[in-house]
Every structure is written in structure tokens, then in C-alpha cells.
């Protein structure tokens, strides 16, 4: 396991053994060495980051560190607005867009003293499961450079796995934190909808978008959550529920606790290696004293179609503002307003954004609304009830994150439907709003990371982190924990 965890680095900084400036320079050196082949960033910000690291160093010397995150180099997915730093959503549409404001999550991290490394690559507008939809090129998988890093937060997961930053902030609308985390062998948490502010996150599916950390360990995820979670007056969907001291709570034993097991999940075309790895994890949880209970999620199989109706509906509306009038890409030589709209949006958006705008426009149109959007909203309620019912019986549910490990670049990019199915185990959880932690649980025969997810009750991030941390501790000595990406 890497030495580059926030917890360990913070200890060194506190004891003045580690210097934030030196740490930041190490990260920059790593980027110098591998970024050309990895492509995990759209924008790198050494000037801003070094200045922040120097401030941290000053505070460290004076013993006035702001938090455990003070001086830690961080990547931010390029869908989060960063004040005076270009923010593109990995789309040509926003190639020259520099916000005048920080997303709440960025502001909270800045207040905690982080040093920003740059803006992580992702699928344009977070549409995708491979970063192949980025207008700035694909982010490769640090374990095999011919494979995708997953998506949409592929740049974030790859950068953390390759140690180009210590942690990153991603967004998860249908699996965009958990799937790339699984593909890259790192930890990703999708918190409960409403747990972390979306203010300043370039919206994809507003009722589904969740903001969360991508880290090397569960403990780090717990630590970052302590900083970024909580009610934000600028996001009306955030909830006033106290944020626990996750780093303390995860130390609790899971003895006697119950884990839900969904049999059908493993009959949905999951790779043999993945099934075996998760069954092994099951045994470890049992050794730790947890009990497995079979639960059913009968409506989960409608997750993908339901998700692709609601999400595209919201996308079609959320992307309306990119119209070539106020900011962003602006087509030249239009004869009139309508032509200007058509040209700006035609030239500025890529194929996937257009596909989703068209799908979403269709499902909301008069005459189709009831058959599609309205019906999907009803199924969504059923899926939500499914999860609530199952989680009434157990503390968490254990599930695969993805049916396969990281696929080859180009393997699915010509077949949108295959790409959409990469979200089969993740999207229904966004529909239900529950928190879910994706963490490594082994490797397949090609030595590609395998992830599993631990799904919890609404606002019970504490439990998913607790189970994840106890599993991590119990498997510390496993041989696969020694494996290193090809970028190291």
C-alpha cells in the first residue's frame, strides 16, 4: 500500500519531517514523468499550488496548520468551478471559461489548506464511463496504458493511483466516482444525495449528481468527508444533518452487524474473477464477525433505462445555457439568432452530449412525457423503496461496482449502449440517493484492479466507511496490496 496517504503525510508535516513544498514538488516531478502518457489533467496549476504549499509550510513551521488536509496536493475534476482557474468540463464548449467563483467543495478544501495540483480530465460534461468522451483526450489506466481509466472521473482516479496527487474530488451521477475508482484500484465514495454541496459543480443530472472524494484509502476518504460534507446555504438540496467524526467512527468493530447480499447481481454477466474476489471479501467480513443476509432488489434491473431517461431529461435542460450568447464557445458568422444557437451548439458539443440532449428533449416532449419521464419517475420511487426495504434488514449491502475490469481503449466507444451498461451496478444507487463506497478487493488474471461497493442507508456514510476501513485493515497484508501500477 502506498505511503502517500493523507493520514501519513499529515503526520510527517505535523512533526516537521515532511515539507508541503517538497511534497508538492514531488507530485510535480511525477507529473513531469508520466502525465504525457497518462493524460489525467486538463489543466495543471503549479503556480497556484506552489503558493498554497508555501503558505502551508509557513503554518507547519509555526505549528498553526489549519487541518489535516493542510499542505496536501489535490486534484479537482474539471467539472468543479475554480476561481481564476480555467474550468472546461472537458468540453470545447468551455475551453476558454474561467469562473469568478469557487465551488463550495473547492472553497472548503482551500479553507482547510490544500495545495491544488490541477483540474482532472473526465468525459465531457461527465457524460461517459471511460473518459473517451473528453475533448482533451482519453485518460489511460495507470495499471495498463492500453486500457481506459473508467469515467467519468477517470482523470481523478488515475491521478490518485499514479500518485500525481494525493486525493481528488470527483462527481458521481450514475457511477462516475465508483467505477473509475474500481478500474484504477483506488477508493471512491459517492455520498448520500444532499450530503455534499453541489454549488459550483457543473450540473449533469441535478437530482442525481453527488460530490465525493477519490483517495488511496478509506481512512483518507473519511477524513476528506469530514471537511467537505454538510449543509450549504447555496445548495437548497443539502440537508442539515450533523457530520460525524468519520475517522473515529470507522475504528468501531463490525462484529454482529449485517451485510446484505443480492444474489441476482452475480447472475448479471459479472466477470468470474470479480465474483470470486467479492466472495473472498465476503469471507473476510464473516471472519470480522459480520453476518450475511440475502436481500432482494427486484426493481434494480430497471435501473439503467430509468436512469437514462431521468438523467438525459435533466441534461437536456442543464445544457441549455450553453447557447453561444454569454460565455463559452461562440460560433462565427451566423445570420440570425436561431442559426447562432444551432451553430454554437452544433460545433461546441460533442457526440455524446448531443445524444443525451436529444434523448432528454424527447422524453420531456409533449405526448411522450407520461410514457417516459413520468413513468421513469415512478420506477425511481419503486427503486428507492427497494433499497430502503433491503436496508431495513441490514446495515449495508455488498455489491460489485462493475461487471468487468478496465476495458481496452476503443473497445466500447462505438457502442453507446454497451458503455451505458458499465453503470449497471451503480446507477440505481444514484436513483435511490444512497451512499456507496467503492474500494479495491483484489486483481483479475490480467492484474487489473477489482472493486467492490458497500451501499449504506441514507446519510449513513459512517457505516459504509466503517465496513470499508475494517476490511482494509484485515487485508493489509494480502499479497495484492503490494502490486504497483505500471506508472510507478
Amino acid at each position, binding site marked *: 500500500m502506498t505511503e502517500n496517504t493523507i493520514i501519513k503525510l499529515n503526520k510527517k508535516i505535523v512533526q516537521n519531517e515532511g515539507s508541503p513544498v517538497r511534497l508538492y514538488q514531488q507530485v510535480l516531478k511525477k507529473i513531469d514523468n508520466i502525465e504525457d502518457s497518462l493524460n489525467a489533467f486538463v489543466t495543471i496549476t503549479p503556480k497556484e499550488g506552489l503558493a498554497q504549499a508555501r503558505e502551508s509550510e509557513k503554518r507547519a513551521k509555526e505549528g498553526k496548520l489549519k487541518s489535516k488536509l493542510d499542505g496536501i496536493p489535490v486534484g479537482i475534476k474539471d467539472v468543479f468551478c475554480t476561481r481564476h482557474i480555467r474550468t472546461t468540463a472537458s468540453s470545447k464548449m*468551455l475551453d476558454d471559461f474561467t469562473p469568478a467563483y469557487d465551488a463550495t467543495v473547492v472553497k472548503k478544501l482551500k479553507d482547510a489548506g490544500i495545495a491544488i495540483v490541477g483540474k482532472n480530465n473526465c468525459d465531457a460534461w461527465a457524460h461517459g464511463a471511460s473518459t473517451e468522451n473528453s475533448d482533451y483526450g482519453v485518460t489511460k489506466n495507470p495499471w495498463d496504458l492500453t486500457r481506459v481509466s473508467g469515467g467519468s472521473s477517470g482523470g481523478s482516479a488515475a491521478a490518485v493511483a499514479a500518485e500525481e496527487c494525493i486525493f481528488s474530488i470527483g462527481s458521481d451521477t450514475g457511477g462516475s466516482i465508483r467505477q473509475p475508482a474500481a478500474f484504477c484500484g483506488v477508493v471512491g465514495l459517492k455520498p448520500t444525495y444532499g450530503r455534499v454541496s453541489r454549488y*459550483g459543480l457543473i*450540473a449533469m443530472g441535478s437530482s442525481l449528481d453527488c460530490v465525493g472524494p477519490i483517495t488511496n484509502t478509506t481512512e483518507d476518504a473519511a477524513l476528506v468527508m469530514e471537511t467537505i460534507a454538510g449543509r450549504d446555504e447555496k*445548495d*437548497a438540496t443539502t440537508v442539515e444533518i450533523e457530520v460525524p467524526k468519520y475517522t473515529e467512527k470507522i475504528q468501531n468493530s463490525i462484529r454482529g452487524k449485517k451485510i446484505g447480499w443480492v444474489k441476482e447481481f452475480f447472475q448479471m454477466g459479472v466477470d468470474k474473477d470479480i465474483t470470486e474476489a467479492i466472495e473472498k471479501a465476503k469471507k473476510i467480513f464473516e471472519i470480522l464477525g459480520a453476518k450475511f443476509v440475502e436481500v432482494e432488489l427486484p426493481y434494480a434491473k430497471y435501473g439503467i433505462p430509468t436512469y437514462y431517461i431521468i438523467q438525459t*431529461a435533466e441534461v437536456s435542460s442543464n445544457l441549455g*445555457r450553453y447557447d453561444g*450568447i454569454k460565455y463559452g464557445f461562440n460560433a462565427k458568422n451566423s445570420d440570425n439568432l436561431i442559426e447562432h444557437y444551432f451553430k454554437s451548439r452544433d460545433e461546441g458539443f460533442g457526440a455524446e452530449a448531443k445524444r443525451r440532449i436529444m434523448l432528454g428533449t424527447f422524453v420531456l416532449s409533449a405526448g411522450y*412525457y407520461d410514457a417516459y419521464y413520468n413513468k421513469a419517475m415512478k420506477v425511481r420511487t419503486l427503486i428507492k423503496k427497494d433499497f430502503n426495504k433491503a436496508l431495513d434488514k441490514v446495515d449495508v449491502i455488498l455489491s460489485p461496482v462493475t461487471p468487468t475490469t478496465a476495458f481496452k481503449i476503443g473497445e466500447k466507444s462505438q457502442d453507446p449502449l454497451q458503455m451505458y451498461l458499465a453503470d449497471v451496478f451503480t446507477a440505481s444507487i444514484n436513483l435511490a440517493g444512497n451512499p456507496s463506497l467503492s474500494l479495491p478487493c483484489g486483481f483479475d488474471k490480467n492484474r487489473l484492479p477489482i472493486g467492490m461497493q458497500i451501499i449504506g442507508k441514507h446519510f449513513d456514510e459512517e457505516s459504509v466507511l466503517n465496513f470499508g476501513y475494517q476490511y482494509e485493515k484485515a487485508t493489509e497484508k494480502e499479497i495484492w496490496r503490494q502490486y504497483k501500477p505500471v506508472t510507478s
Partner: protein
Amino acid sequence: MDKYDIVIGLEIHAQLRTESKMFCTCDNYSVGAGPNKNTCPICLGMPGMLPVPNKKAIEWTYLLGMALGAKVAEKFCFERKNYFYPDLPKAYQITSSTMPPIIGGSVEIDDNDVLKKIRINHVHLEEDAGKLIHPKIGEYSLVDLNRAGTPLLEIVTEPDLRSPREARIFVQDLRSILRYLGISDANMEQGNLRCDANISLKPQGQKELGTKVEVKNMNSFKMIERALEHEVKRQEEILSENKKIVQETRGWDDAKGKTLGQRSKEEANDYRYFPEPDIPSIEPNKDNSIDLKEIKNWLPELPKEKRIRFETEYSLSKQDADNLTSDLDLARYFEQTLAEIPQVAGNDEIKKQKAKKLANWLITELLAKLNGQGISILDCKIKHQNFAVLIEKIDSGKISGKIAKEIFSEMFVSGRGVEEIIKEKGLSLISDEKEIETIIRAVISENTASVQDYKSGKEKAFGYLVGQVMAKTKGQANPQIVNKLLKEFLDKE
């Protein structure tokens, strides 16, 4: 020509005068601000920005609902109305017509003593768009987003109105209610009260409604009545020729005095409404942040209640009470001035007498001046106390009606006190009988012919002689004393 029934329903937009905009903290008052100065990333629709609803705007929506006797919906949802236009920065307007906050309610209008209840279908809350400016020179348009995000109430009536006149009266009454509640400036000329009408005709007695036409761009009460009268005529002509009305939107062109077609039903947008995911639905009976009981306490005396009280408490005619209460500020001015007249307290009879006099002065003199100069009662320079003194001086015969008007004019311009003006202009009334006797003697000796006329029974001559006395004193002689003494003198001769 056949006889037709007119059916009109209205959609009225009223901007709320909250301090901040509907979904951001920008100042809601942009008068005098340069273009796009009163904006922020949220109302500019920048990437990643989220709307946070203005609590006051929601509370005021409920307040209007209570004033209309409507039902507060158990649950209301903001939703998105999607369309592209440069004055709409997000490419969707946040509105709430599908699950509105207020359902039902009514306004009772009074058309020449005929009372009629006009039902409200619903009231919903939404945001206003920005403005486009099309310069006369140059092939471009400019966008000003200062108005974007201003809270807007849309009040939708049932098709209960039966004439353009009723429609105009309804909007006037609704404006009074909005102003009494203090939630909107509700000024049509300034665009913070806007009215669209759906109007159709059907043969008298027929049940089914005819094809409706939506009329827009009526920017004053007069325009509402004129535009709808024109539209009635236009539709009558079409129907009487056995032609069909086209369902369309027509704009009122005030200069041309007619409505012009804007777009037909086929060209109408599909707005792709869906629930706004960025704002949780609002359930006022469950949601702790909305206190309906507290809001009910905010309900003031409404225009109709005040008018009825003025009629009983001050014995005013319905017409006078209506005139005074049509404008809350005028009603306040009236009551505050009346309270400054000393004998009023504790004596109902005197209060009623003085109220009648004051009402006359306010309605005939003050309103004429205010309206003539386009000034609001709030900007009237005459202090309540000074107006009270003026009324007192007239009542006690210390000044004549003519002088009172002169003093009033001066007060209106300068806002100075009554005594000050009387002193400066030498306007105090001559009540000294000896002084008046001297003048009467002079007038009698100079007008022997008229004196003869009077004696031979011509009553008119008396009036002429009074006029001569008044002329000699420049109107300052106390007319009652002049009358009395002149009669004595003439009868003596």
C-alpha cells in the same frame, strides 16, 4: 348582427418587491442601475450555479392566497419551463404552474353597484426574465439581465369576466389588494404589473366556449379596456361573416388602436416542463420554516373592508369611500389628517362632519392636483397637521373658500404652514364689522341703481352688491358678516 357573450380570463403578472431576487441575493431594485450591474453568477446562469428560493417571496405568495380566500396547497413544486431566448440566461424559467402554491380564491368586483365574484384558478410563483434592447442603428441586440430573477406572481383567473370593463375593474381591484398587502408596487406603466387576456365570443346562450385569442402588451388600465373592446369587435365581425376565429396570440398596438397577430397555436413552443431538481418541494404545513399562522397575522385590512369601514365610521358616501380607499396611501393620508383635527377625538358627530369636509377636499382638490402633475400622495408636501389646520380655518369661518384654495395651492407647492402663508400674503379674513360697514356704505353710494333694483324686488341685485363688497376687500371680507350687514343697511334705507 348576432348577439354574442363575451368570455374573458386573465393572466396577471405582478413583480414582488422583496429586497433580493427570487433565487439569489442580488438587489431586487434595479432602477437607476446600469445594464447588467445588478447581477451575479446565479441570475446570469453561469455554470454550476444553483437557485436558492427567497423565503419572503414564498411567504408573500401565501399572504396573497389568504387575501384572496384561496386554498394553500399542501405541496408546491418549482419546475423548469425550457426555451431558448437571450433574455433567459439558463434557457429555462423556474416557475410553478403545475403544482402551484395557491389554488382557488376570488375577488369580488363592483361594476356600478353590481357585485360579481371573479374566481381565481391559481396563483404561482416564478422568476422574471431579462430584457432585450434593440438599438435603432446597428445590426445587433443588447441583453440586460438586471430584471432576470425578479420574483413574479402569476395570478390566473377563471373565464368569469364578461366585458372589457369588468376586466379593467378586476385588474384595478387586484392592484389595490397587492398594494394593501405591500407585496408589489403593482404599477402597470412601470411594468411591475402586467396583464394578458384570453378572450372568446360565443352566441348568446350557447354553453361551449368559442375559440380563444390571447391578447398581450396591454400596459395600462385604459389599454386593457381599449384592447379588449377592439378584440370583441374584431371577433364579432369575423363570426358574423361565418368565418372561424384562429387560435393565436395577438399584441395590442396602442398607437394603431388595434391588436396584431403574433404567433399561432401551431408555432407555440413545447416547453418541456419538469420538476426543478435543484429545489426541494415545499410543504407549508410540514415545513418548519414556513409559518402559515404567522403569515395570517400579517393580513392587513383589505380595500373592501376599509371602504365599508369608511362608509360606516365616517358616514361617507360609497363613492367617496371608494375614492379614498382605492389607494392605500390616500386612505392613510385621510385618516392621519383627520386625527390631527382637535375636536374629532371622542365625538362621533364632529368626526363625521369633519371627515366629510376633508374627504371633499382630498378628492376634489388634492387628487386633481396630484393626478394633474403625476405625483404620488406619498410625495405630497402638505403635512397632515397643516391640512387639518386649513380645514379648521374654513370651518370656523376664519377664511373663505376662495382664500382657502389659494392657501392650499401655496401649501401644495411649498409645503409651508397655513398661518405662515396667511401672514405673508395678508390673507386673513376681515371680520371687523366696523371696517366692513365703511366699505358697504361706499358700495351703496356708488351703486344707487342696483340698490333701487333690490328695493323693487330684484333679488339678483343683492348678489351683485355682495360681489362689489368682496371685490373691494379682495375677497378677504367674511362673507357671512357681509351678508348680514348689507341686508341690515338696505332694509334701513
